[in-house]
């Protein structure tokens, strides 16, 4: 028991000591200023960006998500890229890029390119980058985007020849700007395995507008302008950028309004953004977004679908048309998303080359508003007895916290016409992903974020016979048109074809698109340049930002 008494004394002393230490330290520390701790660069004050993005991997072969790609866009060079303000690609670190034969796409690199670590950046790095991407084929990676790449050749230090499987692939230049397109340093990256982030950072394997100087995954990244970048986008306006990763959008919002974050980009809630619009300390900057939301119909199991007891293609189409007639996109955009999403009347979002609005004129009142009378006559003409029972499914954990409100409103819009009786159901995402392709859901919510800023990315994955929706939509004419647009060399002819595809799919209504997500950044009053990078390329470049 004596020892216990001693223990108690030591314990008491330790407790008192710790308490005193904490108090003294708390008293002497006044908190450090977020911005103040970093030295200013020659090109403006450092900027702190806040985001709720998540990074899977800095290795392009090991990630296929927005958070990782956002980093890659700052630090890796691309052969092709989108200039500020445009969705169309141009050579980035390349001098030229062109088809030298129907199945050969030849890229000439600029001379004298170097990595931040001093290594020469040559065509050998380019060949290495694409070869390893195909070889690794990581389950989390984007290698599937190289579906048309047969092989890559590097005949000299500045020439790269891509040999393609099918001829005249007009999408290939866009693919080079996509998540599969970052060029990596062959002296740092593994040829046959995903390279750990810290090895990449330690190897200083960067040659984009910025290099990473400090890295803590999904916590904090410090960037510094890389003067060796000689590409399309030019030198950054700000030398030093810090990006802080948040888990909760509410914390990001609080730090933004407190001035601890200069730029909040992805993803504040619509309510938070609406609230911040009235805050004198910040500006809300918006640009076109590539994210879309749509209702998908399963052609087998929807009302009157091919495998239902009362199968009737005409009635099934009438049901889809009636839904398109009744949805009030403005109401959803305003009430649920406070303007952070905008109405979408096509399958290709506004801002991309070839985007039209066929759903605006073909359905509803012809002006983009709903029309219950038209829906009623559409159903009646097809011999459909109303109300039609529609099982409508949405995911409660994948498309943000507003999905429940979004689908409650859609249910209300469909039911108040008296034409539908909607059974609204929700499922957790992993199960949802399995069920939707197993014909469990007759109609269901989906969203899409593009791999590259071309109309093709909103058509090929959706409306070919073999599509990721797996909703049994099969229109041979549409299928052929989609394949044709991908190999049409004349830009005007290709645009016309893309417009026609939208009209044709609008007539079939495999899906009913209704919202397009705007890109929104909330910036401090003294921050400029956000508008320049919130363009239809959907790539947010820190280099466009400046402060003070």
């Amino acid at each position, binding site marked *: *028991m*004596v020892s*216990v*008494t001693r*223990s*108690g*004394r030591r314990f008491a002393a330790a*407790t008192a000591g*710790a*308490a005193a230490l904490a108090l003294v*330290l*708390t008293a*002497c*520390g006044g*908190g*450090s*200023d*977020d*911005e103040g701790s*970093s030295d200013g660069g020659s090109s403006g004050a450092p900027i*702190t960006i806040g985001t709720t993005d*998540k*990074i*899977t*991997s800095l290795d392009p072969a*090991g*990630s*296929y*998500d927005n958070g990782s790609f956002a980093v890659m866009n700052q630090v890796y060079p691309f052969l092709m890229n989108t200039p500020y303000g445009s969705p169309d690609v141009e050579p980035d670190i390349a001098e030229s890029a062109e088809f030298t034969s129907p199945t050969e796409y030849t890229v000439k690199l600029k001379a004298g390119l170097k990595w931040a670590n001093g290594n020469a950046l040559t065509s050998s790095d380019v060949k290495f980058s694409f070869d390893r991407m195909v070889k690794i084929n990581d*389950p*989390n990676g984007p290698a*599937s985007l190289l579906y048309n790449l047969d092989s890559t050749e590097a005949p000299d230090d500045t020439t790269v020849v891509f040999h393609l499987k099918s001829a005249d692939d007009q999408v290939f230049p866009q693919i080079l700007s996509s998540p599969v397109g970052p060029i990596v340093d062959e002296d740092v990256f593994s040829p046959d395995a995903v390279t*750990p*982030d810290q090895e990449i950072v330690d190897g200083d394997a960067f040659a984009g507008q910025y290099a990473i100087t*400090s890295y803590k*995954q*999904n*916590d*904090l990244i*410090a960037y510094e302008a890389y003067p060796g970048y000689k590409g399309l986008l030019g030198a950054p306006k700000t030398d030093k950028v*810090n990006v*802080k990763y*948040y*888990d*909760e959008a509410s*914390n990001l919002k609080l*730090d933004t309004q*407190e001035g*601890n974050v200069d730029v909040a980009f992805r993803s504040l809630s619509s309510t938070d953004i609406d609230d911040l619009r009235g805050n004198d300390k910040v500006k809300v900057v918006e640009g076109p977004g590539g994210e879309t939301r749509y209702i998908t119909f399963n052609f087998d199991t929807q009302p009157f679908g091919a495998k239902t007891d009362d199968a009737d293609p005409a009635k099934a189409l009438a049901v889809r048309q009636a839904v398109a007639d009744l949805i009030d996109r403005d109401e959803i955009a305003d009430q649920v998303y406070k303007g952070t999403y905008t109405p979408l009347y096509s399958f290709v979002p506004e801002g991309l080359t070839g985007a039209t609005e066929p759903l605006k004129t073909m359905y509803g009142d012809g002006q983009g508003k709903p029309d219950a009378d038209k829906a009623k006559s559409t159903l009646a003409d097809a011999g459909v007895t109303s109300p039609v029972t529609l099982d409508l499914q949405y995911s409660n954990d*994948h498309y943000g916290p507003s999905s429940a409100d979004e689908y409650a409103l859609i249910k209300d819009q469909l039911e108040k016409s008296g034409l539908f009786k909607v059974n609204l159901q929700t499922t957790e*995402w*992993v199960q949802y*992903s*399995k069920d939707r*392709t*197993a014909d469990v859901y007759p109609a269901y919510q989906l969203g*899409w974020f593009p791999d590259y800023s071309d109309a093709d990315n909103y058509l090929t*994955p959706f409306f070919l016979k073999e599509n*990721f929706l*797996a909703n049994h939509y099969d229109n041979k004419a549409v299928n052929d048109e989609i394949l044709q647009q991908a190999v049409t060399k004349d830009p005007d002819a290709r645009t016309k074809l893309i417009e026609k595809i939208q009209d044709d799919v609008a007539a079939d209504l495999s899906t009913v698109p209704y919202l397009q997500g705007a890109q929104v950044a909330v910036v401090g009053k003294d921050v400029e340049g956000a508008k320049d990078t919130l363009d239809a390329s959907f790539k947010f470049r820190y280099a466009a930002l400046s402060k003070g």
Partner: protein
Amino acid sequence: MSTAPSTEAPGTPAPTATAVAPRRSGGGGGLGRYIVVRFLLIIPTIFILVTTVFVVMRATGDPITAALGGRLTPDQLQQRIHEAGYDRPILVQYVEYLGDLLHGDFGTTLSDNRPVTEVLTTFGTATLELAVYALIVAFLVGIPFGLLAASRRDRLPDAVLRVFAILCYATPVFFAGLLLKLVFSVSLGWFPVAGRASTGTEIELQTLDNPSGFYLIDAFRTGDPDAVGDVLMHAVLPAVALGLLTAGVFLRLVRTNVIGTLSTGYVTAARSRGVREGRLLRKHAWRPALIPIITVIGLQVALLLSGAVLTETTFEWKGLGFQLAHYLQARDFVAVQGIVVLIAVVVALTNFVVDVIAALIDPRVRY
């Protein structure tokens, strides 16, 4: 383990020692055997937990569907699942996993491609730091208030403190965290909203050679008092939110034990000799009252770790609890299993150590 107040004075040879002696000689129930049995019990405990987590995680989906379910065709998705080996019989995967585990190979996380050991060390230090702060808060609040409540037994301060104690351990930790954040960060602006340090400090800490990951230690190493202050300011609210949970338990425990000690014979004797109440409390009652706290620390570690998941999430304190929530959402089997194994080992070992200490202090706990 007993939390009943001792009825003997400190230093008095415990009658329990003689009571235990015949068992030791007759039944082989000595301290050595007790320690061995307690240690061996750790193995099935961890095994059961590992198995449960393994089965449950696989029953709730795979990481590839979670990440890419909205982008790939069913065939592409199935192909990737097949290539990753997640469609193999669960028993085969389980045996392979156990084999790797026994070789100390925790694997690489599926959702962000990091060695699990790196995740455990990087985020484990953050959680450890928070747990230490929380324990300090628990001691600073629980012990003095427990003494105060005992010394004012059945009077207003006692009643108030008993209610306070109940509130402390009955209030969900995330609710306490949100409340503290709302009042002291959002409304009053006294403390930071979230994180372990400000951006500038974080960058400063990352420039250190071989940072410990324990931010307070690293901040001291920078020699920058602002960095130290910043780290402490960020720690206050998470530490209070988590610490109050345990403080309530400590308060009740200390109060009960001090009251018990104050009614023992040796205290009565001292009181009859004219020793003042304050001195009785300081010199005779509070030290033995602390003994039961040691025995409940084992349980509190488990409570702190489970509370850390919610506290870390609320305050974006990027520790193991924070990461666990993230990996669960991503269906990252490997990461979740690694973190749960570590937590299980920590809790089991802590309880083992506490049981041994308790057995050394009070031989009656040796069965």
